[in-house]
């Protein structure tokens, strides 16, 4: 899966989780950029991303991920090509 494709899919997941069609995520997007992305929604988001890509984040990754770019890195390293 290409990085562009990962981001396209992430956009869909984010829009669905935060119930906001105007969201477009980029490499540098963080929780500060999305109003409803607080510690409660973080876990819901993680679960939704995992389900969509059929992969699993480790607890370390869940708490130390800095932005959507890092999330994409982890996804790509786990789903292979």
């Amino acid at each position, binding site marked *: 899966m290409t990085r562009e494709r990962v981001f396209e899919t992430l956009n869909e997941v984010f829009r669905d989780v935060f119930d906001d069609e105007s969201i477009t995520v980029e490499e540098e997007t963080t929780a500060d950029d999305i109003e409803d992305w*607080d*510690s*409660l929604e*973080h*876990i*819901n988001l*993680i*679960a939704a991303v995992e389900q969509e890509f059929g992969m699993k984040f*480790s*607890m*370390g990754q*869940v*708490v*130390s991920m800095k932005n959507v770019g890092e999330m994409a890195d982890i996804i790509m390293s786990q789903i292979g090509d």
Partner: protein
Amino acid sequence: MPASFTSFYFLCFYALLLLIYYLIPKKTQWVFLLFASVAFYLLTGEGVLILYPVAASLIAYGAVRRIAGTEDAKQRRLALGAALFLLIGALAALKYINFGIHTINAVASWCGAQEKILTGFHFLVPLGISFYTFSILGYIVDVYNGIARPQQNFFKTALYAMYFPAILSGPILRYREDGEQFFEPHPFDYRQVTFGLQRMVWGFFKTLVISERMNIVVNTVYDNYTAWPGSYIWIATVCYAFQLYTNFSGSMDIVLGMSQTFGIRLPENFETPFFSKNISEYWRRWHISLGVWMKEYVFYPLLRTKAFMDLGKGLRKKWGKKRGKQMTTFLAMFILWFTVGIWHGGDWKFVIGSGLLHWFYIVSGELLAPFYKKCMEKLAIDPKSKWLDGFRVLRTFFLVNIGFVFFRAASAADAWHMLASAVRVWNWGELFGGGIFALGLDVIESVIAAVSLLVLLVVSLLQQKGPVRERIEKKPVLVRFALWYALLFYIILLGHYGPDYSAAEFIYQGF
């Protein structure tokens, strides 16, 4: 030496440390800090209790080496499990066994038992056990999760656990962010040392001038609340909010300032919490290091357990996506807030006052949100208006104060009686007719308290626009010196000192 950073002897001890710290070779600074931490622990409490933090450091050292030294998942899990069991076990045994016993006795007496079924234990609880245990637990879990570097030196692990400025009242440290800097060389930096000392002075102002004065009013009313009904309870509770805030955040200013003079940067614990617009925001700004810890090591792992994931799926099927998700989070939050409450102490007043009551606030806030939204649309109120924000800040402060009644009262039952009296008795006329000056602060003392609180308010407002110390630094030298010396003399002249200059004990060091 009393366990207080505001005691005269401690300040002498600290001055000596600072001097030696910058005279010895940079590579040995951390060893010196470890010696100082051990000396501090031995001098401030029951010396033998130092065995607890030393044992905790040994457990961390052993567990981390085991976890990092093997690829075998089973071995790693075993090492993690054993360390968690021992550390949490010690904390639970020392702090919570009596809570369990008292609760069982209370339940038995409701059921008609004439005598106590179980007798409580008397333990000497080591200083700072709640703080160092949490700092260590987080470190071990982070190593297990692969995001913290395992420390291979026992003495370095011990310094992280027992670093003396933070051991009494936090902040709770995170090794992966705060740990390594303890062992780096720290050359003397005039600006950092000055900034650190300035922050300590500000901390002394908060604790000695404000907190100690508030304490007098609070004690008068809370120690004898039947004699001080109605409005007195309100005023004493607001005083308690400021007492606790200036005491705890002031002690953090001293701890962080002192660390800054050593070249060590610790995480912030407060961000003007009384300006919060809702309860969730309040907990992101009050005792931040505890909130972050709870989120990372209780809330997230709990929500990621298979049981919770399955529950979430089930509830979503039953009630739909939104409601199902909400219910799962509420349940996890209940466990989280119970833990936050009980961390403060084994007593229902803590479990309610700094735990479940806040859970109730957040849950009802979430459930009522659509209703509020409709109301505001009907009444044509702009949800982003400044007035509404002001109202939100006051409402949040009020809600937090209800929790403080539980937190400060002798028991949950007393808190309940006090709240009932606060609502039932209307005696504001008496309070403002002079009653307010009968609570231990006369007219002059009350004016000093009010002026000091105003100074705190102005500085807090300025802090919203960036660091205040840096702004003062840019002022001409005369203005700068005048400001800092005025504050220093203000503290020396108006600070409240106890019989041995150590009355200002930190409330949070009991936890």
